[in-house]
Every structure is written in structure tokens, then in C-alpha cells.
């Protein structure tokens, strides 16, 4: 862009200081020895009586990186050599070499914000610029097509309506990360497709995410697509499981996630849409769909979305991600393969011994009371239950040790035929004792708010290398 030599002023009608300096601009404009060009940001007829250049599309203003109007520039050989902002008689006089400018005006007055500083305009401009760079196939909808119905018909939906992923929305979503839209995030099963940041962003738009949730979704996709987590197996299994996403660290509060009352339930946009976005990536990018590679016999409602934050502030224990080797200042997602949650009701225990015995009795039933070692679980402890342990000085390790002791299961209780139940292990195990959960196979998190002597168990799936390991990933912006 080349500006005309001489003086250039950028103004807008909606600025009292610009209005104030109109007599000065008129005086300069009338002077045949001064070359003045005025650009106007909001009203092409402003200032009255001056033939201003229309910059309502802000092309010139953005190019000049303006903060303030009025801005007065001196241009020589098409290049800016000096700039002053707002109104200052002293500075304008020095700038123009004319004395007695703006008789009757106050000696100085600060300017107003340039329209280029309007956050909505900046976002729209960034989105428009970013949209042009996106590489995904364009899907043109017909004039009479309904957006929402069109997306259902194309098979993109999990069964609920989706937000249309326009290029502008996707570009705006991508402002949530510093990562290159073309970067490969993961190879997504079952179709083994290399998935870019851009594809994750499109699915995050579909899910209803805000841009600031995108780093969490990216970390969740990365974690899900590791060999350890094994999303292919989690998807393909006939068992009623799916990925459960637990968010820890400063990001949870920063993006407004719920870790307190009803955190495992509905009503929080971040919780709801981050888990949904992960599932939509598996569906749309990976090609994993119910009836296709998803062979679930019954499924569970958590397969729409199952994501929550840990209540770290109210927890008597170190956060989950710290227990898994991360720094408290890190933000991280932990993915666990889980069923739907089930409650533990114990409103009478006031000692840790009684409460841990309650927990153990309920945990014993995960998958089946006679299934041992092979299935993990997550124990979600509520504040009022956690308080019982905190007041007795029990840390997480103490709780896990006590649970482990009470969850040693004698073989005679879990062999085939025991208790009149055919399910179970071969008779050869009758004289053994096995733990209900493998070492490290019981995760504990602190979630909930307000009153309630209730906690929750989320049963797992085949544990370890044969099935799925919980995976924790740092969230990178």
C-alpha cells in the first residue's frame, strides 16, 4: 500500500476528539501549500466539507496498525516518517509547521480507539484470513438445504444436532491453539487416518466447543490414539465402554470446566463439548461408527460425551495428573476407558475404616463380583466422603492400600460354579487369592460440590497391554 505524500489523517465520526479537530482539518485542507489526505473509518461523509477517502473496510487502518484516532502521519516518498495520535496543538503545530492551529480548542485531548481495535472486527478479520488457508474439502450446501439436516444426512452427527463448520468458525476455533493447522495430531483408528489440527478443529466446531477448549480436545485425541490407550479396541469391543476424559491443572478453571456440583452430569459447555468433540473425531476422521467397527452390544450414554475436571482446590489429595508424574502447574488430560458411572450410597460411615469397607464392597462388583485382576476402575470420591479420610489424615496412598487389603479375593469365591454362578475362573485358581484390581488399576479422583455422602464408581475395561491403559497427556496451547 502506498500512501500519498504529505499529511494523512485517519478519523471516525464516532470519536469526539475527531469531531473536535474537524476545524483544524478543514483549515489544513484549505491550505494549498499543505497536501492533506483524510481517511475515514466509519462514515464516508465525515468530516463534512472534506473529500475524505472511504476506509470503512479498514484496509488502510489495519495496514497502518492503528491504535488511536485521530492519527496524523507524515508521508514522504510513500513511506511513513512521523506519527502523532490524539489532539495536541503543540504537536500538530510542530508536525504541520503552522502556528495558531485550532484557535479556541483545548490545548490537548486524547484520541479514541481505532475501529481496528474492536475485538469482534479483529476476530472476524483473523477468521476470514485464516479460512482461506484451510485445506479441508469444501462442502457446498444447496440453497434449499437446511444446515442441520444436511449434516445429519451426511452422517457427521452422533445423533444430536451439530454446529455448522463454516470456514470462518473453523478459523476462529484454530485461534485457540498456536499449533499449525496442517500438523498431524494423531493417526486415528479404525481407518488409520492421519488427523490434522484442522480436522480436530472442524469436529470441535461440530461439537459446540469454544476456541479455548481446543488444546484440551487436541490432547485428548493424542491420548486416545496411543497404542497404550487403544481407541481401536475401545471402539470395537462389544462391552459398554468409551473414553472418559479427566482434566487437571490450571486450564480446567481457565476455560470454566465444572469439577463441582453435577460435574459428571449435564449443564457445563466445556465438559459437554470436549468429550463430544473427541467422540466426533473418532466417528468422522477415524470412521468409527456404531454398527460398523463399533460393535457395542448395548453401549452407554457416556459415549456421547464423558468429560469432567477434578476438584483440586477442595481435594485432600494430590491431583490425579500429579499422581501420574506431572507437575501441579501442568494442565493434563487423563483418558480412562470406562462404563457409565454408578453411585455408592453411604450416609452413615464416619470413620475411614467403615467408609473404605463400603467402597471396597461396591468396587468388588465392577464387571462382575467374580471377575478379578483384569478390569480397572475409577473411584470418584465426593467432598463429604473425602472429608472423612482427610480428618483422619489418610492420604491417597493410605486409601489405596486400605482398599487393596479389602479387595483380596479368595479363589473359592471366584472360580466357576462358586455361589451357583457359572461365570468365573477355572477350578485351578480355587486355592489362590487374587486382587480385584491389578497394581495401579484403581484410579482415584475428587469431584463434586455441596452436600451428599455419595461417591461414584466408573468401571473399566480389559486392563493393561491386552486392552487399554489409562493415558495422561500434557495440554499444550
Amino acid at each position, binding site marked *: 500500500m502506498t500512501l500519498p505524500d504529505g499529511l494523512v489523517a485517519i478519523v471516525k465520526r464516532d470519536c469526539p476528539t475527531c469531531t473536535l479537530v474537524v476545524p483544524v482539518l478543514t483549515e489544513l485542507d484549505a491550505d494549498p501549500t499543505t497536501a492533506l489526505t483524510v481517511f475515514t473509518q466509519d462514515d464516508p461523509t465525515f468530516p463534512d466539507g472534506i473529500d475524505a477517502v472511504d476506509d470503512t473496510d479498514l484496509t488502510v487502518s489495519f495496514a497502518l496498525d492503528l491504535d488511536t484516532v485521530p492519527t496524523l502521519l507524515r508521508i514522504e516518498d510513500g513511506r511513513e516518517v512521523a506519527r502523532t495520535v490524539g489532539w495536541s496543538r503543540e504537536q500538530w503545530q510542530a508536525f504541520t509547521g503552522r502556528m495558531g492551529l485550532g484557535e479556541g480548542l483545548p490545548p490537548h485531548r486524547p484520541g479514541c480507539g481505532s475501529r481496528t481495535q474492536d475485538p469482534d472486527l479483529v476476530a472476524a478479520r483473523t477468521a476470514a484470513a485464516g479460512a482461506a488457508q484451510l485445506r479441508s474439502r*469444501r462442502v457446498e*450446501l444447496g440453497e434449499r438445504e437446511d444446515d442441520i439436516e444436511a449434516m445429519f444426512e451426511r452422517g*457427521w452427527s452422533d445423533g444430536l444436532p451439530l454446529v455448522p463448520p463454516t470456514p470462518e468458525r473453523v478459523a476462529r476455533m484454530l485461534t485457540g491453539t498456536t499449533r499449525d493447522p496442517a500438523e498431524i495430531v494423531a493417526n486415528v483408528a479404525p481407518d488409520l*487416518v492421519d488427523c490434522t489440527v484442522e480436522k480436530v478443529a472442524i469436529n470441535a466446531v461440530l461439537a459446540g466447543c469454544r476456541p479455548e477448549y481446543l488444546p484440551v480436545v487436541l490432547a485428548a485425541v493424542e491420548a486416545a490414539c496411543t497404542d497404550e490407550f487403544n481407541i481401536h479396541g475401545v471402539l470395537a469391543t462389544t462391552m459398554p465402554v468409551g473414553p472418559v476424559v479427566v482434566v487437571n491443572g490450571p486450564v480446567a478453571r481457565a476455560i470454566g470446566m465444572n469439577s463441582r456440583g453435577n460435574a459428571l452430569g449435564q449443564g457445563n459447555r466445556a465438559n459437554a463439548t470436549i468429550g463430544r468433540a473427541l467422540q466426533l473425531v473418532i466417528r468422522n476422521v477415524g470412521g468409527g461408527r456404531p454398527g460398523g467397527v463399533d460393535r457395542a452390544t448395548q453401549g452407554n450414554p457416556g459415549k456421547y460425551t464423558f468429560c469432567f475436571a477434578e476438584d483440586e482446590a477442595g481435594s485432600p489429595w494430590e491431583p490425579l495428573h500429579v499422581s501420574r508424574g506431572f507437575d501441579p502447574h501442568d494442565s493434563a488430560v487423563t483418558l480412562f476407558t470406562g462404563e457409565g458411572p454408578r453411585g455408592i450410597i453411604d450416609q452413615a460411615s464416619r470413620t475411614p475404616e467403615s467408609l473404605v469397607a463400603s467402597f471396597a464392597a461396591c468396587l468388588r462388583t465392577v464387571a462382575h463380583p467374580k471377575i478379578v485382576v483384569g478390569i480397572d476402575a475409577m473411584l470418584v470420591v465426593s467432598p463429604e466422603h473425602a472429608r472423612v479420610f482427610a480428618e483422619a489424615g489418610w492420604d491417597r496412598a493410605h486409601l489405596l492400600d486400605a482398599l487393596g487389603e479389602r479387595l483380596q479375593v479368595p479363589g473359592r469365591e471366584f472360580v466357576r460354579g462358586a455361589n451357583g454362578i457359572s461365570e468365573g475362573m477355572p477350578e485351578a485358581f480355587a486355592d489362590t487369592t487374587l486382587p480385584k484390581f491389578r497394581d495401579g488399576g484403581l484410579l482415584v479422583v475428587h469431584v463434586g460440590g455441596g452436600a451428599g455422602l455419595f461417591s461414584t464408581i466408573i468401571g473399566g475395561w480389559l486392563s493393561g497391554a491386552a*486392552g487399554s491403559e489409562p493415558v495422561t497427556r500434557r495440554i499444550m496451547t
Partner: protein
Amino acid sequence: MSRTLLDPTGELAPTTRERIARPSSLEGATVGLLDISKARGDVFLDRVQYRLEERGLGVHRFVKPTFTKVAPIDLRHEIAKQCDVVIEALAD
């Protein structure tokens, strides 16, 4: 007014490959038996192996490390190299 959306899918354009025709007979064939490590799959395959060997057929046994993950590519390659047909024990 028409609107433009971005495709959220993997945009796959897979090429179609012809399946090898089923053999009309197992006469002289080498049969691969793949145990995917599901419970009691071995019991089923032991019996199949017994019946195939009774007919004088060559049998090679293979085991997937776990039924929850796709077979390693080396294992698939070995099966394809050594066998004319493969029988897989899928369920418990």
C-alpha cells in the same frame, strides 16, 4: 444463499481391491489357523487342526498378541506368505 462447510471426515478415497477367489477345494492347500487370544479360541482351533490334519492338509498356527488390537503387520505378512487360506477363531 448457498453456504460452505468444511468436511469433518478423513476424506478417504480408498482404492477397491479384488478379493482372491475362494478355492474350490482345500486339496493340497496350507491352512493358517489364527488364534486372536480370545478365551477358548485355542480349544476351537485345536479341534479344527485335528480335523484338517486328518485330511492330510498342512496347518500352521498363529497367535495375535491380543484380540483388542489389529494384528501386527509382520504377522499378517507371515500368514499371507505361508498359507493359502486362513481360519480365524473370533469369539469366546
